Each structure stands twice: as structure tokens, then as C-alpha cells.
């Protein structure tokens, strides 16, 4: 972003990468996929790069309101400094925080989740779907991220993208409003679960396997980790792929 600013340019879109997307090796692949899609659609976008900081979501949900607001106010200052108007992110947690929680602290942006953006790009014909791509007819199921689904009512966009792949979309027994959490939200990602009979992702793994899908589509880097771990433990060869990755693979971007 700083470079664009120096060149006197104002990008139409800011890509908020998020911490998982920046540091987690698996999630970095999602980040690169989204970047490829944006490039392919010739959308000029910027990133904050090293100036981006955690939105504070895990801190807030772990009860540390101080830390959350420190991060939020700092990020808002950075975003406002660059005059950012529109943000896309591949992380439902960043999405929720930026969209719903920053306005109260003075940060007002148009925030869009990447599944929505990809859906729009397909509708507008800017992403040209290849006929008979690698996912045609494959059984794919979609795992609803809590922060996309129940928290923000986005159930259709990711499914619409899967339909555009010509895949055979199958639903798990718990989906949409009744979708089962992967176990990562509410800052659970950062600690062991409390005592219980199972881990939450083990419970969700049962649903994934039961659905008989070959690919589980996800739209959240934290779900990605949880679901992949759950499947790995069961030595299942079901793959978990992000919606952005599916688009990149299908169209060989």
C-alpha cells in the first residue's frame, strides 16, 4: 500500500490478508489463490503488508477487550490514513470484525468476503469458468463457517461458486443455519479444548466422512486447519480446499 501511495495511486480494493493468511503455511495458499484470481480479473488491489495487524478478533472473543480495541483503533488509523474504502478478505473472522465491529469505533468500510467477490466475478463473467474442469461431477460438500453463516447470513455465495464448478454439491447432515462449528472460533483455536468426550473437529469429521464427498470446500482458514486435522487423524483422503483454491485449480490460473 505504501508503495502505491508513493506512486500517487489509489487502488480500488484492499486485500485484507489476515494473520492466518499471512503466516499459516496452509492458509498462505488460500491467500495466493485469491491474489491470482484478482490478478486474472485485472483488479488492482493493495495490501497493507507489514502495516497490517491482527484485527483483534481472538482477543475480543477471549474477553480481552483492551487488546481488541487497541488493535482495532490502530488498524482503523492505518486504513483511514490510506483512504481505504473497500476491503476484501478471505477470513470470515476478519470480515466480521471489520464489517460489524469497526464502525462503532469509527472505521467505516465496505467489506466483502472473498466468496461473495468470487460469486460476483463469476456472475459478471470476469472469471471465465473452464468447461469440464477438474471438479466437474465430483462430489463436493461445503462446510459453513460460523462467522460467515450464522454470524452474517452468508450461505449462498459459496454454494453458488461450487455450482459454477459443475460439481455435484452434496450437503452434510448439519448445514447452513444448523452447520456444526469446526471448533476454532471464540479463540478456541489458541488453546486446548476443555475436558470432554471428543474434540469438536472430530465430531465434524464424522459429518464430512458421512457425506461421502471427495472434497470439502471451506471458506475460512481456521476451519481449514480444524477440518484438515480432523480428516488427517482418520487417515481419510478427503481433501479440504478453499473456495478460492477450487477456482484457481479449475481454471488453472
Amino acid at each position, binding site marked *: 500500500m505504501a508503495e502505491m501511495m508513493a506512486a500517487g495511486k489509489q487502488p480500488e480494493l484492499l486485500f485484507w490478508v489476515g494473520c492466518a493468511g*499471512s503466516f499459516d503455511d496452509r492458509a498462505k495458499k488460500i491467500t495466493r489463490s485469491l491474489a491470482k484470481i484478482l490478478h486474472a480479473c485485472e483488479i488492482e488491489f493493495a495490501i497493507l503488508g507489514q502495516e497490517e495487524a491482527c484485527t483483534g478478533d*481472538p482477543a475480543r472473543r477471549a474477553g480481552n477487550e483492551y487488546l481488541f480495541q487497541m488493535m482495532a483503533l490502530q488498524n482503523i488509523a492505518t486504513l483511514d490514513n490510506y483512504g481505504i474504502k473497500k476491503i476484501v478478505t478471505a477470513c470470515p473472522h476478519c470480515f466480521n470484525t471489520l464489517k*460489524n465491529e469497526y464502525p462503532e469505533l469509527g472505521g467505516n468500510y465496505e467489506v466483502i468476503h472473498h466468496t461473495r467477490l468470487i460469486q460476483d466475478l463469476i456472475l459478471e463473467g470476469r472469471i471465465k469458468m473452464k468447461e469440464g474442469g477438474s471438479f466437474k461431477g465430483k462430489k463436493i460438500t461445503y462446510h459453513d463457517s460460523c462467522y460467515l453463516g450464522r*454470524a452474517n447470513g452468508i450461505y449462498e455465495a459459496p454454494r453458488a461458486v461450487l455450482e459454477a464448478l459443475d460439481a455435484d454439491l452434496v450437503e452434510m447432515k448439519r448445514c447452513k443455519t444448523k452447520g456444526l462449528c469446526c471448533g476454532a472460533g471464540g479463540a478456541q483455536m*489458541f488453546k486446548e479444548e476443555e475436558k470432554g468426550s471428543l474434540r469438536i473437529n472430530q*465430531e465434524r469429521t464424522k459429518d464430512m466422512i458421512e457425506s461421502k464427498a471427495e472434497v470439502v470446500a471451506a471458506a475460512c482458514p481456521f476451519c481449514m486447519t480444524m477440518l484438515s486435522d480432523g480428516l488427517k487423524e482418520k487417515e481419510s483422503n478427503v481433501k479440504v480446499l478453499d473456495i478460492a483454491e477450487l477456482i484457481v485449480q479449475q481454471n488453472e490460473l
Partner: protein
Amino acid sequence: MQYIQAIIFIAVTLVTFYFFFKKGKEIYNNIQLGRSADIQNKGGLKSMILLALGQKKMFQNMIPAVLHLCIYVAFVITQIELIEIFLDGFTGSHRMFFHAVQGSMAGEGMYNFVISFIEVLSVLALIATVIFLVRRNLLRVPRFVMPEMNGWPKMDGNIILYWEIFLVFCIFLMNGADAALYPGKYGFLISDNIIAPMLSGFSEGTLHFMERFGWWGHILGVLAFLNYIPYSKHLHIMLAFPNAYYLEETPAGKVENMPNITNEIKAMFDPNFTPAPVSEEAANEKFGAKDATDLTWKNLLDAYSCTECGRCTDACPANQTGKLLSPRKIMMDTRDRIEEIGEGIKKEGKEFKDEKALLGDYISEEEVKACTSCNACVQECPVSINPLNIILQLRRYMILEEAKSPEEWNVMFNNIENNMAPWQFSPMDRDKWKEELEEAE
């Protein structure tokens, strides 16, 4: 005899209404013990009509929704007959509405239609009630047999159902005896055609007694029910309405802001910052909630509205995987605690204090920590209750006031503070993915 009945009736009615309103006022006062709630976008009449009157969210589960609807509609429509019963009771008359329209074909037809309609609904309600009893006690549906349902909550659920059966029995006894006493006078669908023939062997005196027994049984049952409701999970038949009205309609993922913290942080960033004046209440506020009185009045209204149905707990990922957390228990504990505080204040006055608190004595830290903030409980609740909101307030207290966060969370907090990310990576590496992208190309 008629006068004596009327006098007894008036006396009983006045006494029961007095106690009902007294308890109602206590509950109102208890709810007012909560702090003020900043409800930015309340559901209003629309959500009251859809969610409470229309029971929209009940229909997420079809079978219980239809059964529940039978009882609900029967309950509401029976109020028409109840009005007549009340008026008869006050004036010592008998079937006042019928006599008012007697002689007019249309009037009598209307009367018979309404009563017959109520009779049909009552039968449907009876069937639903029996199924509910079976489901609760014989089928042992998981959400009804969880530990927090042991004892009183379980009994409460059953008492109401038996009560319902008793009320329906009384209605039919009353109508049936009436129909047997005056064949051809009325035309009640079920009483005239099914029940009266069954009663035809009884003497006139017995039938009169049965009619009176049914009448008194029904009205006393209703009055007793009225006084039972405020102590029961059945309070939801009243509070579901205001609760839907005050439902906050912001996206479910948004967590309530703490403006006093914003002020502190702004002041830290900018020494010249002068905070917007905050109310005295806000300034004295603890960070987060330790006790029921630290919660908002909406949280407390939620607690009183809870039907203990367990849909929330059934959907809770933590509960499903054997964790202690149960969102229903959160609501039940909150209600029990605020009732306890209310009782204390009644006895000892406003200064009442005891050694207990919601967090610790009722709800354990382990429960509070286990929540993934997935909103499944909020989504499922048919009466617009938000258990997650309470959990997060308790968490705030644990972390901000008691510094009791799990060690792993402390590590995460430190990382965010120092590395701008919840993991220990250098902020310098944040855009490394880009190089890897370029390399790949």
C-alpha cells in the same frame, strides 16, 4: 346458591390476581436490577409478530412445532370461552353469551361454532400434550434428560402437561354435562355428539354436579395456573413477546462494544483526547459481568423467558462433544441467581449482599471458556434468547478483572501485542506469501 358462588368466585379471582401481580412486579423489579442495555436495532413489532405470535423459529423443527402450535392455538382461542366463564362467575349467570343470542339462528350458530371449534382444538391440544409427556418421560429425548434438568425443571415440565390434561378434562365435563342436561339446546360438536351420550345414564342432580365441577375445576385450574406461571419455565407464554420486541437485530457476529475502554485507549494514543462524557453508571461499571446484576436487563429478561427446551444445548458444539458448557444451563443459572438476589433484597433491602456470584457459584470458568462463539444457540432459540452474550460478558470479567485466562490465551495476547498476530511470527514476514507467489510464477 348463585350468590354464594358469585361471591366465592369474585373473592378467589381477586386474591389470585393480587398474588399474580405481586409476583409479576417482583420479576419486573428483578429485571430492572440489570444494567441498562444499548439495543441499537431492536426487532420491534415485526419480530414480536413473527417470532412470538407467529412462532417462526419453532418451525425449524416441524413435528414439535405443529404439536406446540396445537396447544398454543387451543390456549389462545379458549380464552374466548374463558371470558364467558369469568362473566358468568361474576354475575352468577350461566352461559351468558348463549342466552344473549338465544333465539337468533345466526347467533346460536355462531356460539355453537365457537365452542365446537374450541372443543376440536382442545382435543388436538390433548393429543399433543400426551405426545409431549411420552417424549419427555418415555422416549427420553436427549435434550430433556441432561443434568441441568434433574429435579424441579423436569417436574415443572411435567406439571404443566398434566395441568393441561386436567383443564381439557374439565372443559369437556362441563360442556358434556350441559349437553346431557339440555339435549338439543346446544350443538357442541364433541360434547353433544360424543360425551353427552356417554353421560346419559346419570341423574339430573349428578349431571348438575358434574357441570359445576367442570366449571369450577376449569376456572380454578386457570387461576392456579396463572399463579404458577411466574415460578415456572412457562413464563415464556408472556415474556416471549417483549423478548422478541427487544431482540437486537445486528448481525449475530457482532460483539457488544465497551465504550469506556474506547475512551481509555483513545486517551492513551492521544494525550489531548477528551472523552465524551459517559453516564455515571457506565463509569462505575465493572469490566464484564461477575454476577447477575452486572448483566443487562435484556439478559435478565432472556433468562426469565427461557422455556428450558434445550434446543440451544442440543445444537451447541461444546455440549455435543461432552464439555460442561450448556447454554440452557447458562440461562437457568442466570434466572436462579437473579431470583435469589431479588429474594435477598426483599428481605434485607437494597444493600443486600451475599457471598455468592453467578460466575463461580453457578457457572464455572470451565463452562465459560468452552464456548466457540458459534452462535448455534442464538440461532436455535425459539424465543429470541442470546446465551452467548452472557457467556462473553462473564469471560470479560474473568480476563479483565480476575486475570484468569488460560496460559495459552496469555501467550496469544502477548503475541498480538508484540507481533501483531496471535502467533509468534515476526511482523516483517507478514507479506512473505507474496514473494512465494512471485517465485511460483
